[in-house]
């Protein structure tokens, strides 16, 4: 079903439909993540992917035309490149350990320590929160700074243009 949606997004020329379809895609992705027991990520996907980004894309659509411009060249070469890269990536996954293999490196490195000691060391039962805010505190600080920088960038770009427009009137 998600594959059908992706093809529909690629084929669809009306950008409004594309935005709606990507919102549906995000909700399906969130359901997949719930099925994988990744509730925190599912919540983020549902609120950010399906909620906020849909609203922002609709806001952007309000400013531009709702129809995609006709492509200026034949899509044969890009298609070949993306199929080639996709095939290479699929070939790469053959070397990965099997899905949910308990002896995979990701499950034997730091994950056992987090799962066994997080409650005792941090007193926080949700291991995801403990890892995010405590064990990987630097990463989350960087992440927050990225969000902040994005906001500052948008303010800097859009506000200046508005002021210039106001001065010209």
């Amino acid at each position: 079903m998600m594959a059908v949606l992706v093809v529909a997004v690629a084929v669809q020329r009306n950008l409004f439909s594309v935005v709606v379809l990507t919102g549906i895609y995000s909700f399906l992705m969130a359901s997949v993540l719930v099925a994988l027991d990744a509730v925190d990520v599912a919540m983020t996907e549902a609120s950010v992917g399906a909620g906020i980004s849909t609203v922002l894309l609709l806001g952007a659509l309000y400013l531009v035309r709702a129809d995609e411009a006709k492509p200026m060249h034949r899509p044969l070469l890009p298609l070949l490149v993306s199929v080639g890269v996709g095939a290479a990536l699929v070939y790469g996954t053959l070397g990965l350990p099997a899905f949910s293999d308990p002896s995979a490196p990701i499950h034997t490195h730091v994950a056992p320590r987090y799962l066994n000691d997080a409650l005792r060391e941090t007193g926080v039962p949700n291991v995801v929160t403990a890892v995010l805010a405590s064990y990987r505190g630097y990463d989350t600080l960087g992440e927050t700074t990225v969000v902040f920088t994005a906001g500052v960038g948008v303010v800097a770009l859009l506000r200046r243009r508005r002021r210039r427009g106001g001065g010209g009137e």
Partner: protein
Amino acid sequence: MKNDLVLRVVAKLFTPFVLLFALYVQFHGELGPGGGFQAGVIVAAAVILYAIVFGLPAARRLVPDAIVESMMAIGVLIYAGVGVAGLLLGGAYLDYFVLDRDPVHGQERGIFWVEIGVAITVSSVMLKIFAMFASRGHDPDE
């Protein structure tokens, strides 16, 4: 959409519950799914819903631009401030164990404040980006 009665009533009814749910996600994030990022996004979504239904100027009166813009920085500063507090109390940067006499309590306290910082920054940045996009193409004095 300002004149649609159903939308107005539903939006007014919804907003407090959305905000309450955001607080739940924020403060229950240690126990269940959720945390600062998700809570921040939900707060932003509540205000964006209000802005869509009642118009951006109404939302701007509710949450003035100056507050949103300063909150963007305050969130990061709270996060970084937790790190500096750890330094001042004799630990490493972002070391929560020294924030309380009991190391586990220190961890809880550190995580609590860090999550609040994340929520403040995320919610205000999302709001600001939305407001910036939505106000393009309109008269600024509208």
